[in-house]
């Protein structure tokens, strides 16, 4: 496999890793606050649909983004109501919302566009097109790093760079601010926060909503940048891989970046049977197998937030 091929694979690695990264950060926010969220898949899906539909109707990618985030937020609020307000089972709530998403998107898409659950293809104005970073062409001639910068780093949609920036942002807010401190505390021992006179419910909702926003961006990316429109089940299990990546990342922001890049890389080589002579089925199973190994602690043990999955009930 020559350098050029490697660059291509890295290029598509980034394209494929970004939705995973955003979803993974979403999961990170939610679970650091003690709310499990297997509903990432569903949130991305509704976001993908909403952004695809609105971007088509308005012809504006930004309108699409707004819609995508909005839709994901609706799902996030539902999850919050079920698992925070009414102390329901967070896992079941997530599963339910995933089903709801996969059904609703197709239903509404069919009703609105009657194109078999797909939204019409977007014109370039309705999409987040690739932006070329400064000096991309200038440095292309520089050996090795030149092409790396010009072809891999540069030339992605705006949302890609947004996603990457979300990593340090998450890190800073989570570890360097009052909000972050309280949020982490809520994920470890909500009673401590409650007795300190801070509302557990509000903090957890905040976390869930942030997760919604990130999933919204992820879905929008799928429908308006990676693709030109929404297609049924277009998230294709990315939400679950993101969860796996989250565990792999041990619930840490930078870890999330590396984990999702790794999984993105697997997906990228799965698309290149010409370079890796392994049966495609095997390549497709690889991320899942790896995840299982990670979960099994064969690749480093991960300790989840202590209060994760536990609805908070006042008691002494």
């Amino acid at each position, binding site marked *: 496999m020559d350098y050029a091929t490697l660059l291509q694979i890295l*290029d598509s690695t980034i*394209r494929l890793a970004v939705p995973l990264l955003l979803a993974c950060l979403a999961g990170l926010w939610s679970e650091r606050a003690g709310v499990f969220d297997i509903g990432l898949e569903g949130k991305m899906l509704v976001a993908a649909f909403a952004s695809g539909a609105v971007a088509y109707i308005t012809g504006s990618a930004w309108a699409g983004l707004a819609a995508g985030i909005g839709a994901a937020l609706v799902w996030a609020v539902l999850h919050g109501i079920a698992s925070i307000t009414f102390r329901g089972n967070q896992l079941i709530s997530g599963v339910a919302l995933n089903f709801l998403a996969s059904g609703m998107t197709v239903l509404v898409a069919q009703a609105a566009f009657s194109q*078999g659950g*797909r939204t019409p*293809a977007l014109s370039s104005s309705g999409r987040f097109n690739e932006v070329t970073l400064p000096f991309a062409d200038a440095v292309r001639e520089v050996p090795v790093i030149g092409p790396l910068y010009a072809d891999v780093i540069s030339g992605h949609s705006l949302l890609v760079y947004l996603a990457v920036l979300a990593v340090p942002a998450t890190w800073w807010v989570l570890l360097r601010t009052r909000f972050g401190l309280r949020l982490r505390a809520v994920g470890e021992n909500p009673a401590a926060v409650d007795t300190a006179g801070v509302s557990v419910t509000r903090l957890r909702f905040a976390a869930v909503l942030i997760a919604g926003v990130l999933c919204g961006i992820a879905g929008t990316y799928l429908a308006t940048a*990676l*693709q030109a429109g929404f297609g049924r089940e*277009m998230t294709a299990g990315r939400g679950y891989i993101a969860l796996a990546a989250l565990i792999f990342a041990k619930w840490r922001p930078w870890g999330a970046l590396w984990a999702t890049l790794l999984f993105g890389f697997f997906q*990228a080589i799965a698309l290149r*049977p010409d370079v890796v002579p392994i049966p495609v089925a095997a390549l497709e199973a690889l991320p899942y197998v790896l995840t299982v190994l990670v979960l099994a602690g064969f690749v480093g043990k991960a300790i989840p937030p202590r209060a994760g999955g536990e609805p908070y009930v006042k008691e002494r």
Partner: protein
Amino acid sequence: DPALIFDLGGKFDKSFNEAAYMGADRWKKDTGGSYREIEMQSEAQREQALRRLAQSGSNPIVMTGFSFADVLTQVAPDYPDTKFVIIDSEVDEPNVRSVVFSEEQGSYLAGIMAAMASKTDTVGFIGGMDIPLIRKFGCGFAQGVEATKPDATVLVSWTGSTPAAWNDPVRGGELARAQIGRGADVIYHGAGGTGIGILQAAADEGVLAIGVDSNQNALHPGQVLTSMVKRVDVAVYDAFTQGEAIEPGTVVLGLADQGVSVAMDENNADLVTPEMSAAVEEATQKIIAGEISVHDYMTDDSCPIAGF
């Protein structure tokens, strides 16, 4: 009433199934008749759909796609009075009509145009599900390229080995980018709904693509060189018009009877040079006349030229 069953990938795949839909729709407009239609959601559904339609008295029942072959062999005998039409596959039953196309011929023409349009002398073919039928496309395409530019390279990739491969635009897009990365500047797809992603990627990366089944030139005007149109719509239209009277047996539609062709319209007018259309015209005549015989992969399951 007649009925139409769309395969996975859906009625609006902008390609194979959509072509069938066009036919049915035209028939509806022309005759004012009505028909039933179902879209497959999963493999295991086929039999229920067939039986349900037959049982509810639809006749004839048209289904798009080879995947129905096996199920149809099971179901057809149970409903001797119902006529079935299967497109893209041969089922030998007294009440079944099988319609197949000489895709290799149309693909050959596409190959010629691709070779002439290519500046890098590298062109690509991306098949959907890796099955003989689609290899047939690729093989004809490769022969067309070979005949025009013997030293040109033809890259070949497949989206997958299951029907899911018909409806995976993301993967299609990535595969296209990969081929473009390897120098391809014209990409021909035979991948149904997945093709949307392929055409999109080609357009995004500023190279030419060739559509399939339906006329896909309009999807990205000026960026789709042409489309290897397969007149599934005609097949459906005929079936519906002949109704219950339709006679069983196998029908092969090729260049001669406009069953396959390369689409020329305002969307690709400025892409198609006079030489190109001349070359296409010439090849067409020769094929019809039998002076050129395009090798059909399915006859011996091999394609030396394309290397599979």
